[in-house]
């Protein structure tokens, strides 16, 4: 355990404290950093995110992390907006993102029985086996808060239905993503974080 060096990218998101507390509950220490050398040296990198895509990207650009992150070789986990940033673009503020995973986040279409933002507990449908999802099953509940989503694609390992199904967990090479908030998804979220930290 001690050789693991977990770095949370200081992307300005408001959920960094909750994420650190969730890792502490797993008895795992983490550092928050925007320093390229520190991020590159990490065993696991977490890209959190709450807020707007364009803002988050401009913060990453100002610390030149937009060039660094796509080159990382260790496991990287994007959470919520952090997952959307792994894609090519987002409709939110017409933002160009990190361009690691093909696709573009689009606004969820609201309807009478499906308000947007999509906020609350919803179930996972597992699409293909993935180390991130070890021990998790179809129908497990996770906590979502988002207005934009990624459609199901080759990167999707779990989807969730809210109108059309969207990608709730993704994996693309060493890049992983969760559209929901594992740090606030009770036992399911804790398991996902634990799974991520066990990936080498």
């Amino acid at each position, binding site marked *: 355990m001690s050789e693991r060096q977990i770095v949370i990218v200081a992307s300005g998101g*408001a*959920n*960094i*404290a*909750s994420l650190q*507390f*969730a890792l*502490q*509950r797993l008895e795992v220490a983490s550092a928050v950093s925007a320093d390229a050398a520190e991020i590159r040296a990490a065993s696991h990198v977490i890209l959190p995110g*709450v*807020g*707007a895509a364009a803002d988050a990207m401009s913060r990453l650009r100002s610390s030149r992390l937009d060039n660094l992150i796509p080159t990382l070789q260790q496991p990287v986990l994007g959470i919520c907006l952090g997952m959307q940033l792994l894609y090519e673009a987002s409709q939110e503020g017409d933002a160009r993102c990190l361009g690691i995973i093909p696709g573009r986040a689009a606004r969820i279409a*609201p309807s009478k*029985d499906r*308000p*947007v*933002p999509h*906020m*609350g*507990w919803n179930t996972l449908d597992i699409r293909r086996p993935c180390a991130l999802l070890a021990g998790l099953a179809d129908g497990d*509940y996770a*906590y979502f*808060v*988002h*207005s934009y989503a990624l459609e199901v694609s080759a990167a999707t390992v779990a989807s969730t239905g809210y109108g059309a199904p969207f990608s709730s967990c993704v994996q693309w090479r060493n890049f992983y993503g969760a559209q929901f*908030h594992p*740090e*606030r*998804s*009770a*036992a399911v*979220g*804790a398991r996902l974080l634990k799974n991520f930290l066990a990936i080498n």
Partner: protein
Amino acid sequence: MRFRDHRVVGDILELAARYRDEGADELVFYDISASPEGRSVDRSWVTRVARTLDIPFCVAGGIRSVAQAEEVLASGAEKISVNSPALERPELIDALSQRFGAQCVVVGVDSQTFDHGYRVQQYTGDIERSRDTSRSTIDWVIEAQRRGAGEIVLNCMSNDGVRQGFDIAQLRAIREVCRVPLVASGGAGAAEHFAEVFQAAQVDAALAASVFHSGEISIPNLKRQLRRAGIEVRP
């Protein structure tokens, strides 16, 4: 859970852990004495709650600026809820939503029933300062959404504390104009009331305090009953 800050933090943490373990889906912490007294409050408890909880929680009470909201969110809360300060200065909703995103911004509305409709009440945490704003609840809910509220918690005061069930008629009327998640509050007295409000008023969530604090309704039992009634709930 409603508390004034003389209540020791230990009580809050203990309750938070209990509800977490019982399967509550989200907790809301109301510092009900904060707004009427026009003061800012010591929020060191937010961090301690955030360490304890692995479910989302919202902090309400006395948040009257972007800076105060930032402090609460950075301490680990998912959402902040504004009520009286948003009535004093509705632009606060715009500012919070622009800074943190609509998903963080809950607008709490205390609403009273009159002969000619529903009206918003202010400073309800203090019986001496509590006042009728003469604003229509429906208009205020529309305005709050336009300004960037990501969720509305509607506390129907004529039902609050009476435990005879949620105010279905009012919640239905608000549901008609509410395109963001709507949370029903006020009136829960029995498990059937929860089933009723989900089915009859199509709310996204239902909130209660005293029936849970007292143990009259246990969360696991409530969830079992809701599932039997065909309502999808997290186990």
